[in-house]
């Protein structure tokens, strides 16, 4: 019988597990503006959409129709976008910034004056108080320069986020105004030389002073963006707490001010290393509860990821403009480059990728902006994985279109490629995020299935019959109907085929998940290659959801060029459908397509040898 009852998950699942961010609405004082303040609550999570895919179900209400914003907001966004675009095209010299490895003072000041340092800080603290959707829209423009994008994101998506979502009123009043105006710059200090992906293992310590008024922080942090110029840092360190009479070492979050170091405190910066030598921090500067720092960290990271979708999309759209100009005019063999199949494929790749990324990003942002604030950390992680890898591939292909020219520093392509390489690494490596995506969903599915088993044991015949019926239907090969198409379908009829493929994938995914839980139980946590495929399928499913929802809306409202959207949607879904089926086939029991055992063996032998194992092909034995 299924032994999913005792489903224990290891620390890899501890990334912000038991938390959900909740917002409280403030009554609108003018027009339709809603401010959302976030605070951390310790309740069971209100996961958004993707979790039901693990059960082979589609929670249509969450994602159809595609989130829409009011007319006024659209106008407002257009207004906000114009000066930022103008600034970036006229005042930002990306080549110079790259060459000198520094953002000039005037450019930074221009960005501060534009208000780009406090986009999501509420108006009462001096920020712009804009929604996730608007933030994502602005990220499309700031991504045109990699250094600026990272500086701004490190400052507000993670640097000051802790104070914003977990700080108390006093802390917000004290720090947010200057951070929002850019007078102070923020940084997020979690990673250490010995603790990257394994964030819970940090060793920086904060010891309470004898008078109980200060903590002294000792340790060093690594890879800290804005580390060299930050005035206000969110620092994570271990503190001793007493839980149920037992002394434990738990992580706490602190606000550390650069210029309040005191006599003995010393802060040293090198490129991105920040080391703390007896740095005093007043006890009022603890964010949230003492010992509750890890949750704060995970919440901060989870809330900023979705914007990578729109920033990558913005960058790719720009590259499409630049490269298509070249492909239309450059001629070889008496034809323009654009007439060759392999070049055409690259344009299709870039267009589809940009399309999927922005669809996913704005779907996620739209869900996050809903009242009640569903926990979209799963969806945001998926957007991040897809966009970082898509961005890397597309910038590489864009460079390829230009050939030799693309490789030179005279053109921006190699800079885009270099800048993109960090995307799959920071903000949670894609490997860790895949684990998070797969395990969070598996945990949810496990709980639901366990619940069903308990019901059946109690004698709930209806439930048992339902499950048997489902298995019979599946074995007779009837296709799934999840309500996306047909008379009351939420997807537009011209996308019916793609929707059907999606439904088939979801159905198969649900049974695949069930069978994996059954087969592996608790040991699933260690099967990374299996979890990787589960995550990849889920990412594709979410992507398909996003494009189906978006293009359905575009057709229904008659948006310009919606037939091109249909083309992109169908192409992507068809491709994703086959990839998903292939991966799910590999996940079946004793699948001949699955080479995992061999892969592990190869790795073991190589790592034992600390080198390539084979004898040289030219060697002789006689």
């Amino acid at each position, binding site marked *: 019988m299924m032994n999913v009852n005792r489903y224990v998950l290891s620390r890899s699942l501890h990334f912000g597990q038991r938390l959900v961010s909740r917002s409280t609405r403030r009554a609108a004082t*003018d*027009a339709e503006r809603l401010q959302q303040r976030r605070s951390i609550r310790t309740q069971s999570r209100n996961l958004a959409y993707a979790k039901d895919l693990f059960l082979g179900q589609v929670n249509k209400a969450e994602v159809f129709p595609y989130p829409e914003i009011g007319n006024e907001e659209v*106008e*407002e966004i*257009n*207004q*906000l976008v*114009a*000066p*930022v675009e*103008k*600034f970036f095209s006229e005042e930002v010299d990306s080549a110079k910034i790259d060459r000198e490895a520094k953002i000039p003072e005037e450019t930074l000041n*221009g960005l501060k*004056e*534009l*208000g*780009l340092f406090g*986009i999501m800080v509420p*108006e009462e603290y001096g920020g*712009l108080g804009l929604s996730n959707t608007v933030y994502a829209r602005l990220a499309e423009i700031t991504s045109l320069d990699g250094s600026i994008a990272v500086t701004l994101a490190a400052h507000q998506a993670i640097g000051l986020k802790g104070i914003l979502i977990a700080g108390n009123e006093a802390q917000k009043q004290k720090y947010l105004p200057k951070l929002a105006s850019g007078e102070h710059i923020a940084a997020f200090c979690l990673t250490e030389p010995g603790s990257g992906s394994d964030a819970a293992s940090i060793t920086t310590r904060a010891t309470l002073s004898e008078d109980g008024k200060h903590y002294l922080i000792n340790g060093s942090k690594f890879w800290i963006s804005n580390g060299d110029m930050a005035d206000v840092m969110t620092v994570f360190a271990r503190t001793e707490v007493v839980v149920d009479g037992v002394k434990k070492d738990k992580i706490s979050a602190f606000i550390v001010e650069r210029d309040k170091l005191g006599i003995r405190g010393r802060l040293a910066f090198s490129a991105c290393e920040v080391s703390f030598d007896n740095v005093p921090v007043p006890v009022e500067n603890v964010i949230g509860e003492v010992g509750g720092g890890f949750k704060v960290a995970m919440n901060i990271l989870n809330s900023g990821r979705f914007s990578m979708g729109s920033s990558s999309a913005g960058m790719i759209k720009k590259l499409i403009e630049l490269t298509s100009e070249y492909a239309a005019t450059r001629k070889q063999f008496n034809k323009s480059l654009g007439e060759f199949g392999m070049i055409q494929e690259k344009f299709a790749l870039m267009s589809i990728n940009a399309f999927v990324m922005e669809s996913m990003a704005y779907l996620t942002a739209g869900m996050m902006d809903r009242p009640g604030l569903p926990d979209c950390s799963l969806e945001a992680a998926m957007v991040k994985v897809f966009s970082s890898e898509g961005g890397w591939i597309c910038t590489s292909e864009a460079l390829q279109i230009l050939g030799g020219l693309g490789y030179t520093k005279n053109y921006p392509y190699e800079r885009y490629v270099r800048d993109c390489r960090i995307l799959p690494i920071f903000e949670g490596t894609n490997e860790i995020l895949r684990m998070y995506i797969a395990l969070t969903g598996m945990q949810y599915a496990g709980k639901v299935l366990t619940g069903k088993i308990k019901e059946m044991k109690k004698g709930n015949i209806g439930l048992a019959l339902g499950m048997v019926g489902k298995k019979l239907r599946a074995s007779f090969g009837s296709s799934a109907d999840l309500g996306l198409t047909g008379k009351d379908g939420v997807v537009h009829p011209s996308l019916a085929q793609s929707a059907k493929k999606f439904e088939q994938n979801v159905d198969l995914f649900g049974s695949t998940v069930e069978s994996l839980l059954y087969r592996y139980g608790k040991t699933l946590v260690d099967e990374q290659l299996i979890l990787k495929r589960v995550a990849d399928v889920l990412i594709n499913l979410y992507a398909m959801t996003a494009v189906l929802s978006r293009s359905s809306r575009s057709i229904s409202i008659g948006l*310009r060029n919606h037939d091109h959207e249909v083309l992109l949607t169908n192409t992507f879904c068809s491709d994703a459908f086959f990839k998903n089926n292939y991966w799910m086939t590999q996940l079946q029991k004793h699948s001949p397509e699955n080479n995992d055992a061999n892969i592990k063996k190869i790795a073991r032998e190589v790592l034992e040898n600390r080198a390539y194992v084979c004898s040289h092909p030219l060697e002789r034995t006689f």
Partner: protein
Amino acid sequence: MSGRVLVGVKRVIDYAVKIRVKPDNSGVVTDGVKHSMNPFCEIAVEEAVKLKEKKFIKEVVAVSCGPQQAQETIRTALAMGADRGIHVEVTGKDYDTLGPLQVSKIFAALAKKEDAQLLILGKQAIDDDCNQTGQMTAALLDWPQGTFASEVSLEGDKIKVVREIDGGLETIKINTPAVLTADLRLNTPRYATLPNIMKAKKKKIAQVKPADLGVDITSRLEVLRVDEPPQRLAGVTVETVDDLVAKLKESGTI
């Protein structure tokens, strides 16, 4: 003096866009094309806001004539520092045929109605390059004009204007009320910052129709045809200077 300045702003196709002529040669393609404030109008707004910041004047009113979208242009002016806006509604066919003469009649009527001390416009619009509205408005109002201004300073109730003309720079002193048109080097317009855009949402834009101002906007001009400029022909390389001179003589150029 009321201390009020009227600034005219026009919504035009963005300067960076590649213009295409409609297939029926009746005009250029505007559907779905990026539009923004005429660059010279931006300079005009900047000058007005600067005068207010230096406390020479008290209120800046931004005016635009056109369809609903003209309000976006007014909002940009508000974000740059104008205090309120007036949107003169002109739509459809009327908008297609709206030219400097009608616009100057509208501005003249508004200047009187709002008791303006100064009217600042851009020297010309980058779509039609007419360079007429400022001059016509001054004539209709019988006000002095300082056109192609590259420097403006208020001295009591007179204005000193340095004008860019073909021969160089000309400095004149004119009485107020007056009409000024801004040239390129008058100032560098500020960026509308996001916080100012948010503040601008609270500023008012009044709506009026030309009829309310007693202005007849029927056009006396009819556009017969719009064509693209002829394609640039390839050149010819010559070996020596003598060849060049010979060719030039041949083509009748010298």
